[in-house]
C-alpha cells in the first residue's frame, strides 16, 4: 500500500468509524467469567516466559479447563450471592489448597479445616464451598489461604470484579458513582517469581525456605513482557490467557484495576498522563458514604501492595504538549473547535469535542526536525509520522505493530530491574498503552 492510499484509507476509516462509534461505542472491558457459581479446580501446569523458559506452576482452573495464571477473573454483580467451589487435583505432596477472598465475609463449608479457612485435600474429589455476598462493587483478589508464601508464589492467585448495581456496558462505572465512570477498563495483576522455588517443587521438594526469596521474573496478568502485549487467549500461551496491552483514544477515561498478586511492591509507572487513584481494596476514597471519590489523588506511579487492590482512572489528554498532535500545514488539514489549522489564528480555548485536540496548541508546529529515513532505526511501533493517525512513508515491513498510527506509552515497573526476564532486558513487568486516533475501534480488552 503506497503512502497516498494509506493516508486516504486512514482518513476514510476514521470518518466511518467515528460515525460508527457514535452509534455503538467500542469499549474495552476486562475479560473473565461471569455468573454467580464458579467451580474451580487447583491444577498443575507450566507458565511460559518469553526467554523460552517455563515454570512449573499451580493455578486455579475452571472445571474442565486448564490451570490458569492468574486464575479465572470472576466477574459478578453487586448484591449477588456468589458460590465458589474448589477441588484439588494437585499432586498428593502439594497438600491442601484453599481460597480466601479479602474484602468479603465468606462462609466456608466442606473439606477440612485449615488455619485460615476450609481446605480441599489433594484427592481430586472433595469439594470446599465458599459463599459470600458481593455486597460492594470494586476490584478484589482471591488466593490460596493455605501456606500463602508458597501457594501464591506457585500461582494460586486471581482477580474478582464486582460490577455496581445498575451497571451499564454503555455507560460503565466502577463503583456506581459518576466519579468512577470510564470508557475502557484493564486489569493488571502484578507479581514476580523466584524460579528456584518452581524448580524445587517440580523436583518434588516441598520443604522450601521462602524467606530466602529472590525473584527473577516479573509479571502482569501472568505474562512477562513482551508477551504482556499479545492478545488475550493466544493459543501458544494456554495457561496465561490474559494480556495487558491497553488501548484508548484521546480524552477517554481508562479504568486501571491493579492487584498486588505477588509478595513484593511494584511501582507501576504509567507514562502519558497522571491517573486519579479513586479506590483501594474495593472501597472508594471518599469522605463520607455516597460522596464519590472526593479524596482521590493524582499520581503517576502506583504501588499496589501484595493482596491489595487499586482503582485508578487514566486519561491521555495531550494538554500543553506545545505542538499540534494532528500536524500543521496544508497536508494536515484539520480543525479544532471548528477553526482550521491553516487559519491565521488557529488557537482557541479547551479541547475539540470530537478529536479531543488541545486547541491552544492547534496550529503549533512540531518542534523537532525529523531525520531522514536512512538516518533512523525503526521499531514496529513507529508509524512513520509524529502525528496521531498520521501514517507516513516507512520501509517495507515496518510499523506493523501500529496499524492505526497511535502513540505508544510504556507502562512498567519503575524498579527497572523488574523489566527483565531472568537478567535479559527488556521484559518483565512492562506493557504499553496505545493512544489510538479518534474513531479507531477498540474491542475486547483485557
Amino acid at each position, binding site marked *: 500500500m503506497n503512502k497516498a492510499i494509506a493516508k486516504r484509507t486512514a482518513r476514510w476509516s476514521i470518518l466511518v468509524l467515528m460515525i460508527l462509534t457514535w452509534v455503538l461505542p467500542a469499549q474495552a472491558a476486562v475479560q473473565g467469567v461471569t455468573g454467580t457459581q464458579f467451580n474451580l479446580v487447583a491444577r498443575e501446569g507450566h507458565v511460559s516466559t518469553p526467554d523460552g523458559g517455563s515454570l512449573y506452576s499451580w493455578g486455579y482452573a475452571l472445571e474442565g479447563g486448564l490451570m490458569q495464571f492468574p486464575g479465572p477473573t470472576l466477574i459478578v454483580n453487586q448484591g449477588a450471592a456468589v458460590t465458589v467451589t474448589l477441588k484439588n487435583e494437585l499432586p498428593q505432596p502439594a497438600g491442601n489448597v484453599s481460597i480466601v*477472598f479479602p474484602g468479603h465475609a465468606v462462609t466456608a463449608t466442606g473439606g477440612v479445616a485449615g488455619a485460615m479457612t476450609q481446605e480441599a485435600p489433594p484427592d481430586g474429589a472433595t469439594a470446599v464451598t465458599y459463599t459470600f455476598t458481593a455486597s460492594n462493587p470494586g476490584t478484589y483478589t482471591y488466593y490460596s489461604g493455605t501456606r500463602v508464601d508458597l501457594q501464591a508464589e506457585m500461582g494460586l492467585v486471581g482477580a474478582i470484579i464486582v460490577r455496581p448495581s445498575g451497571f451499564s456496558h454503555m455507560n460503565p462505572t466502577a463503583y456506581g458513582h459518576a466519579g468512577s465512570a470510564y470508557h475502557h477498563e484493564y486489569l493488571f495483576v502484578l507479581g514476580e517469581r523466584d524460579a528456584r522455588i518452581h524448580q524445587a517443587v517440580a523436583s518434588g521438594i516441598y520443604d522450601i525456605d521462602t524467606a530466602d526469596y529472590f525473584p527473577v521474573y516479573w509479571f502482569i496478568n501472568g505474562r512477562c513482557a513482551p508477551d504482556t502485549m499479545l492478545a488475550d487467549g493466544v493459543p501458544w500461551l494456554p495457561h496465561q490467557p490474559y494480556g495487558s496491552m491497553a488501548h484508548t483514544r484521546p480524552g477517554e477515561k481508562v479504568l486501571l484495576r491493579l492487584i498486588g498478586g505477588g509478595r513484593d511492591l511494584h511501582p507501576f509507572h504509567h507514562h502519558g498522563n497522571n491517573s486519579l487513584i479513586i479506590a483501594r481494596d474495593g472501597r472508594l476514597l471518599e469522605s463520607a458514604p455516597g460522596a464519590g471519590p472526593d479524596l482521590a489523588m493524582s499520581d503517576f506511579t502506583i504501588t499496589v501492595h501484595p*493482596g491489595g487492590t487499586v482503582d485508578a482512572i487514566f486519561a491521555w489528554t495531550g494538554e500543553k504538549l506545545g505542538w499540534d498532535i494532528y500536524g500543521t500545514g496544508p497536508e494536515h488539514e484539520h480543525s479544532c473547535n471548528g477553526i482550521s489549522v491553516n487559519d491565521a489564528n488557529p488557537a482557541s480555548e479547551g479541547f475539540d469535542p470530537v478529536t479531543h485536540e488541545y486547541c491552544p496548541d492547534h496550529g503549533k508546529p512540531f518542534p523537532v526536525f525529523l531525520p531522514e529515513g536512512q538516518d533512523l532505526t525503526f521499531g514496529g511501533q513507529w508509524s512513520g509520522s509524529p502525528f496521531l493517525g498520521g501514517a507516513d512513508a516507512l520501509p517495507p515491513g515496518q510499523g506493523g505493530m501500529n496499524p492505526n498510527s497511535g502513540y505508544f506509552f510504556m507502562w512498567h515497573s519503575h524498579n527497572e530491574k523488574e523489566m527483565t526476564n531472568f537478567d535479559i532486558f527488556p521484559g518483565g513487568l512492562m506493557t504499553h498503552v496505545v493512544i489510538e486516533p479518534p474513531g479507531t475501534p477498540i474491542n475486547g480488552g483485557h
Partner: protein
Amino acid sequence: MMKKTLKISTYLVVLVGVVAAVAMGAAEAAEFRLRAEAFTITMPDGEAVAMWGFVLDTDGDFATAEGAATSPGPVLEVPVGDTALTIVLKNNLTTPISLVIPGQIAAMSPVFSVDDQGRSRVRSFAHETAPGAEGTYTWDNFKAGTFLYQSGTHPAVQVQMGLYGAVIKNTAQFQAYSDAATLYNWQAVLVLSEVDPLLHAAVAADDYGPGKGMTSTVDYAPKYFLYNGDPDPQVMNIGASAAAVGNKILVRLLNAGLESRVPLLNGLYMKQLSEDGNLLPYPRQQYSLILTAGKTMDVMLEPKAAGVVSFHDRRGYASAGSAGAGQILLTEGAPPTSPGFVGGGGGGGGGCFISTLVD
C-alpha cells in the same frame, strides 16, 4: 448541613474542654524503668538466637528480678493526664545504648565518634547509657498516639538485636485521638519485627564491627519473623467476645523491622485511623495495609458477626521451620477475665496486649 456541622463542633469543643480540664488537674510525668538485657529465643526450627530486649522494673530496684527481658519490650502506656514521659534505663548489656521515640520531640544530645580519617561521625542520636550504668530519657510534651521506642545508638545493629517496643498514649479514656471516632472498647498492640540469625550470632560473639567477621548490615537477610516477639504464632486471641458484635477493637500496628509488611485481614475491613501517631483527616476503609519499616498505624476493627477472622502478612514472610506461615487468627471468643498480656507462645513472650473494657 451547616447547622448540623456547627452542632457537632460545639459538642466536640465542650467535650475536649472537659477532658482538658481533667487532664490539667491531674497533669504529671509518667515514669517507667526499663532494664536492657540479653536473652535467647528458640526459633521454630530449633535454632537458639541471641536477642537484646527490655524488661520493666516494677519495684524501683533494678537489682531485683522481674523476669526475663522480651523483644519487643513491654508496652508503655502513658496515662491520659500525663504530659511528660521519663524512662530510666538500666544497661545490662556490654555496649552503650540509648532510647529515642521517632515522632516525639525531645532535647537530643547526639554522641559522635571520630573515625580514622579524622571525620566526626554520629554514633548515637541521644546521650548514651554506658554498660552497667543508668540513664534518664525525658519527653516533656508527650503527644498522644502510637509510637516505637527503640535504641538510638548504632540503630542499624541495636534495633535489629531487639531493642524496641511500643509506647502509647490516649487523648481521653479509651479514646486514641482527638476524634471521637477513635473511641474503642478493646485494644491490642501488635509489633512486627524480624531476625537475621547471622547478624545476631556475630554481635553475640563480638564478631561484628570494623575488621571483624561481619563488618556491616548490608547482607541483612531475615529468617525469622516475630509477632509481638513470637516467631510462630498460631492463634492470637484479641478477645472480642461473640456477644460483642458491634464492639470497637483498636489495633495498634508497629513495624520495628526493616522489611515492608502487609498486614491483611480476611473477612473484615479495617478502618485505618492514623499513621505515625497522626490522626488521618478521614479514616480509610482497607482490608490490607502497607506497614513500612518504622511505621505505626492504628486501625479499628468492628466485628459484624460472631466468628473467626484471619490475619496474616500477605508478603508471605514466615519463620524458618514455622507451621503458621505468619497467620494470626483473631478469634471472637470469650473475652479474657482480666486485662493483661495474652496469647504469645514460642520463646519471645510478650503476646498480645489487651487493655480494659469500657463497659
